[in-house]
Structure formats: structure tokens, C-alpha cells
């Protein structure tokens, strides 16, 4: 049975846990994610935003330790694309009776994320070009196999520190 956890499938248990970054992992992908690319994370819930400061909470990055932090590669998704995706999801979910509020987008540079090293050696995060049939810009940021919930909290702080803090509506 196929493992639906993208990170678990793509992270290698070899010394270089990010080796699968070197090859395209999706037939829909325009190519592997380059270090100079900017990644966009769409924020769909006000729960992920500190209501006093407007800044995303550390928990907004927690997916990186589990199923992968879904992002869009801005080289392949225009601000209009991002806005449309955010607003479309908001509209569809509301039609189905779900409360949804597209808060905007935060950005991080692939090179900054890949530069983060655990104790100066092993990579903290890997970034894979997990393009989807309806979103060729899709990429996942995965926490490399570093164990423990405390480590996961350190990981999300490190990741949050290299992303922008306040969601902005793309235009």
C-alpha cells in the first residue's frame, strides 16, 4: 500500500537524508527545486496568526515534522495564482459550510531553508518538487529524521525564522 506521507517516502535514511532532492520526484514537476527559489506558504486559518501582532505562530510550521510543509514555488506560481488558489479554497470550503479565511501568504527562500544544519552537520530540512496534477508549483519542505517533540519545536522555530512573519495578500 502506498505511503501517503510524502516526507516518509522521500527522506532517505542514508547519511545524506536529502539525496532525493537531486532528482525530480513528480512527473508534473518543472524540475527540482533550486536554492534561489522563493517558496510561498498559504495561511488558511486565523488560528495560525497571533491576533495581537499579526505574526504567524510557531505552530503554523508544525506540518514540517509530520506530513511535510506544503508550499508553492513562486517561479511557477504568480501572485495571481496564489491569490486565486487561496480565495478559491476559501469559497469552496464556505460553500460546504466550513469556516475558512484566507489570511495571505508568507515566504521563505529555499537556500535559507537548506542552509539550516543540525549541530553544524546534518541538514534540518529537505525540499522536494512534489508537483501535483493541478498544481505544478507544489513543493514540500520536510524535517529530516531528527527525533523527539522538543527537536520538532526547535525545527519549527528555525523554519519560522527564515520565513516572513506576517501573511500578505498576494497582488
Amino acid at each position, binding site marked *: 500500500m502506498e505511503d501517503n506521507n510524502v516526507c516518509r517516502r522521500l527522506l532517505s535514511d542514508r547519511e545524506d537524508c536529502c539525496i532525493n532532492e537531486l532528482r525530480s520526484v513528480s512527473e508534473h514537476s518543472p524540475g527540482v527545486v533550486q536554492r534561489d527559489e522563493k517558496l510561498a506558504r498559504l495561511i*488558511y486559518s486565523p488560528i495560525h496568526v*497571533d491576533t495581537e501582532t499579526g505574526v504567524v505562530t510557531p505552530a503554523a510550521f*508544525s506540518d514540517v515534522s509530520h506530513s511535510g510543509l506544503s508550499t508553492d514555488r513562486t517561479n511557477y506560481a504568480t501572485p495571481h495564482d496564489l491569490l486565486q488558489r487561496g480565495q478559491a479554497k476559501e469559497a469552496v470550503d464556505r460553500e460546504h459550510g466550513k469556516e475558512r479565511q484566507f489570511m495571505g501568504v508568507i515566504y521563505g527562500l529555499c537556500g535559507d531553508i537548506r542552509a539550516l544544519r543540525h549541530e553544524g552537520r546534518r541538514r534540518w530540512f529537505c525540499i522536494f518538487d512534489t508537483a501535483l496534477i493541478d498544481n505544478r508549483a507544489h513543493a514540500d519542505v520536510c524535517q529530516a529524521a531528527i527525533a523527539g517533540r522538543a527537536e520538532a519545536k526547535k525545527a519549527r522555530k528555525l523554519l519560522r525564522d527564515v520565513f516572513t512573519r506576517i501573511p500578505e495578500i498576494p497582488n
Partner: protein
Amino acid sequence: MLATIPNSEFTPPATQMPGWADFPRANPIDVKRDLLPTETFADPFSELGASPDIYVDRFDVVVGKITSYLSLPQDWDGYGGVPPSFSAYDDAIEFLENLPRDIPVPKPMLAGSGEIGLFWEIEGIYVDIGFEGDRAYSFYAEDRNGNAYSGDDLPLEDLAPLSEIIWQLRLFSQDSA
């Protein structure tokens, strides 16, 4: 649950508490139980209406927010996020109640996995604490001097691993008073 004080009975002190968003009249009178105008927290206190004249206890605001997490639907975050368990809720509230009363109230947050979190991010102090409902907490923290602290599977009542951080939060509170 709410501690509300009509504005006519409330005289704010002259100083603001740095590190939190500024409100026109939300000057703290008690570090643990500083007051916030309801216009900033219309939810879950919407029954009060968006009024600048009614203040609520910050501690109650945090408890209210955490309580509201329980009624979130599946996929609340747009990425398949799940609501927290009652156990995670109980653990977070118990931990919150056990915190010293002379430090700022932490802010609540929720992960897509259902883990409830509390965090501080004040003047170089960073603390991220999580509860998954197994009668334990995990945390990662950095203090003003750049020192890092962390712990996994800690009993809810054991604040010793956080003692240095709590001490610094206490100093911050005293400096702000």
C-alpha cells in the same frame, strides 16, 4: 468565566507593557491578569460585542481560545488539520493553571496534528510548549542570552526545566511594572 470590569471603574496605569501589541487603553495593572479590550478579541467573546469599554482578563482570553479549539472541524487549517483531543485540552489548561502568577500569560496556538501549544516571544525570550494529551509536555526555549533549553515527556507539574526561563520572564514582568 469572564472577569469584566466596566471602563468607568478601571484606571489604567501610566506605563505600557512592551513586547505586546499596543492598545490605546490596555495598560496592565497585573502581570498575570492584565486586561485587554474586547474589541481586540471579538471571538470567542462575541457576546460582549466589539466594545472598547469592557475589559477582559487575558488569562480568561487564553483559556477561551484553547476551549474554542475543541469545536474546530477536520481540516480546520486547510491542510488536513485535526482538532485537539480532550486530553490535550485538559493538559494544557492544567499546565496553564500551574504557572506562576507573576509572569506574563502565554499565548495559545494549535498545530495541524492537534497538539495544543503555549508560547512566549518577548524581548529575546522564546518559549514553545506543546501538549498532546499524554499527561506530559515538551518544550523548546531560548533565553535572552542565546542559551537553548528543551525537554520531552515532562510531567505537567514539573516546571523545573523551565526555571531559568521563568526567572527571566519574571524579571521582564518586574521591569515592565
